[in-house]
Structures are given as C-alpha cells and as structure tokens.
C-alpha cells in the first residue's frame, strides 16, 4: 500500500520531470497539427551524441571496474531477452486473428532495448544521485541481440512449418553483425572503446556531458511526435498489439527487477543497477531494432510492431516504468 502510494505520488511528480513533459509536449504538437519539426539530420546527431556520452562515460569508469561482477547481470540480461521473446510468442499464439509473424516480431522488439529510454533512466538516476555500476549501460547488447536473434529464429521456424520449406535459412552471425552495425549500438560500442582506451575525459566533460540533458529533451519531443503519428498505424492492426504494448513493459520490467534483485543478493549488484536493468528490460527498441527485424522477418507487418513499440511501448516504458522501478527500488532497498 505504502509502495503504491509512494509510487502514485512519485508518478505525479514525474509528470513534471522534463523527460516526460517533453514527451507529452511532442505528442501535443503532433495532435494540434503543428508544423514544427525536428529535421532528420538533427535527430541522427542527437542520438549519436547521447550514445557517445553514455558509452564514453561507461568506458572511462569500466577501466577501474571489476568486470567479473558484470558476469551475472550479463547472463541475466541474455536470459531476460530470451524469456521476453518466448513469453510474447506464447501470448500472441493464444490470441485469435493475430498474424503469428507480427506477434513474434513485436515480441522481438520488446525484448530488444531502447537507447532513448536507457538515456532517460540514466538522467533520472544521476539527478537523484542513485549510484550504479559504470558498466550497466554495456548490458544493452546482451539483452538486445539475443532477443532479436531468437525472434527471427522463431518466426522462421514458424514460417517453415506453415509453408513447408518456403523460408530462408536463418543466418545468426548476420543478425549479430546487423545489430552491432546499427547506428545505436555502433555509437554505444564506439563510445565504450573510446572511453576505455583513449583520454576522453576532457571532451566528455566539455562537450558530450553538457549536451546530454538538452539533447535528451529534444529526443523526447521527437518520440512524443512519433508516438502520436504512429498511433494511426497501430489502430490498423488487431487491438491485442495495443494491449501487449501497454502491459508488456511493466511485466518485463518486473522480470528485470526480480533478476536484478537476485544479482544484488548473489553478487552485490547495486540498487541503481537493478533499476537500470529493469528499465532496459521494460524498454523496446525504437531505432535499430526495426530494420533488423524487417531484414529477418520480411513478412511481418511493420505497422504492427513499430506501431506497438513507438506509439505505446516507449511512452509506457518512459512514463510508467522508469518512475515505477525507481520508486520500487527506493522502497525495496530502503533508500
């Protein structure tokens, strides 16, 4: 009860947080038909700077970290990514009138990770001074890639069974490469390497760091606009996708929280780390997941999975899951 009340209070407070306010602002702009747009090139640049900031920061601190500690959370991340896809596969197979490939692709996208949701959570933890291990953002690919691979494998197994022999072989290595080559993971990994091996402290503190919050605010505006714009597409597919998009992030986040808590007990994973793991689990890939899935499951309808993710999944992850798991951690860890 206490948790619920605290969560409710916190949630109302969060509505005032810049992150959420900009998200809502973007949706409002789109809803009122405003001609204000953020150009595509600015968006690409913003995503690049945000992920470089997260990567470099992580890379610098990883230098002194005991990477062995990362093992358990990394294994859990892989596990979460896989479990999410399996759960989604089961959920959609229980429903009538859902094209199975669409369901599996959606589950894949929700198993994968959103860079923007991750950035928003990091800003919140930094503001609230809740510490987390420097390498936590590096868990991203450990959940993202297995989820995408499993979704593509399951979809192709399914299609093979349906039209015997009619599908392509699944090239796992190709999917891994595709994922790592995507703009989001490339920037994160590049940042990690630069932070780890080069003297990037000064450029981090003079450039990437000061721009972080401002660029995040603009990214939220873009996500809000896109959420509104894609809502129409989501309406063109079965309502089950909307239901999934609202509920799944909370369930996945809870799964992340549970395993994070286990890691806390087993290897002393930090409370902030538990929150971030939950948010990574709750988030769904918005930038680089879609093209990978389109490559791997061509017959799936992108309006279903991109619509579900962009117009509902991401807003729920940011507006509901971030404050939810943050306040849960405060209660659970007595902070």
């Amino acid at each position: 009860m206490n948790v619920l009340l605290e969560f409710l209070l916190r949630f109302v407070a969060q509505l005032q947080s810049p992150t959420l306010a900009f998200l809502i602002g973007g949706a409002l702009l789109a809803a009122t038909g405003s001609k204000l747009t953020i150009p595509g090139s600015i968006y690409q640049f913003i995503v690049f700077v945000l992920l470089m900031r997260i990567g470099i920061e992580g890379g610098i601190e990883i230098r002194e970290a005991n990477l062995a500690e990362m093992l358990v959370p990394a294994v859990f991340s892989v596990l979460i990514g896989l479990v999410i896809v399996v759960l989604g596969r089961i959920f959609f197979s229980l429903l009538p009138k859902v094209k199975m490939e669409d369901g599996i692709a959606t589950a894949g996208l929700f198993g994968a990770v959103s860079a923007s949701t991750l950035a928003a959570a990091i800003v919140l933890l930094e503001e609230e001074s809740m510490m987390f291990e420097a390498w936590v953002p590096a868990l991203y690919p450990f959940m993202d890639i297995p989820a995408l691979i499993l979704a593509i494998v399951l979809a192709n197994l399914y299609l093979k069974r349906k039209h015997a022999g009619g599908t392509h072989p699944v090239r796992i290595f190709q999917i891994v490469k595709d994922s790592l080559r995507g703009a989001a993971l490339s920037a994160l990994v590049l940042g990690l390497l630069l932070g780890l091996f080069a003297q990037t402290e000064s450029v981090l503190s003079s450039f990437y760091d000061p721009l972080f919050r401002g660029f995040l605010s603009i990214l939220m505006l873009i996500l809000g606009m896109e959420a509104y714009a894609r809502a129409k597409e989501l309406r063109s597919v079965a309502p089950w996708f909307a239901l999934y998009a609202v509920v799944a992030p909370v369930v996945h986040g809870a799964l992340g929280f549970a395993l994070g808590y286990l890691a806390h007990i087993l290897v002393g994973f930090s409370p902030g780390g538990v929150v971030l793991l939950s948010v990574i689990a709750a988030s769904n890939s918005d930038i680089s997941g879609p093209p990978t899935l389109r490559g791997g499951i061509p017959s799936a309808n992108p309006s279903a999975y991109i619509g579900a993710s962009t117009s509902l999944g991401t807003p729920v992850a940011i507006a509901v899951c971030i404050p939810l798991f943050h306040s849960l951690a405060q209660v659970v860890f007595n902070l």
Partner: protein
Amino acid sequence: MFHKAIKVIVVTEKFLQDRVCSLMESCGGKGYTLVSAGGKGLHHLHATDDKASVAEGLGNIKIEVIVRERSKAETIAATIMKDVFSEYPGIIYLEHVEIWREERF
C-alpha cells in the same frame, strides 16, 4: 547524337538501398542515381528527411538506373521484383529516355 534507352526506377525504403543497388549492378547496370524521398503507398506514410523518423532506414529512396537495352532493363526489374519486392514494400517502373554518350550506359 541521342540514343534511345530505358530508365528503371525503384522507390523503396532506405534500408534496402544497398541490396537494390548491387542487384542493379550485378544485372549489368553501369551506374545509378540516388535521391532521398518520402511518400505514401499501401504501407506506411514515409516522411521526407525534413522530419525526423525514429526508426533507422524507414525513409524512402528513389533509385534510377539507365540502360541501353530493354532486355537488360527487364532483367533488372524482374530480379529486383523477385529478390526484394516479393517481401518488401516498394514500386518499380520504366521510362523511355534518350541518352547522349551511349557507351557509358
């Protein structure tokens, strides 16, 4: 002197650009021209680059290849039709053009 030739035009999503271009080249196209585009068809509405689109590679691209022989144009079109557009959105069409310096096409 102008010579009759055929232009094959493809409009599809950006993440398919490399695939379409290499099919064009492997079927004998000696060059191609790329133009960033937006548009609407059976599937999504694609914004032009004026407006950010969250997912990577969702914008449209227009790819044009000019070839001298109609047969080559048809091969290119048929190959792309089979290898790409059986699964992915996009349109393909031909136009009659007249080229200068025919040896380059």
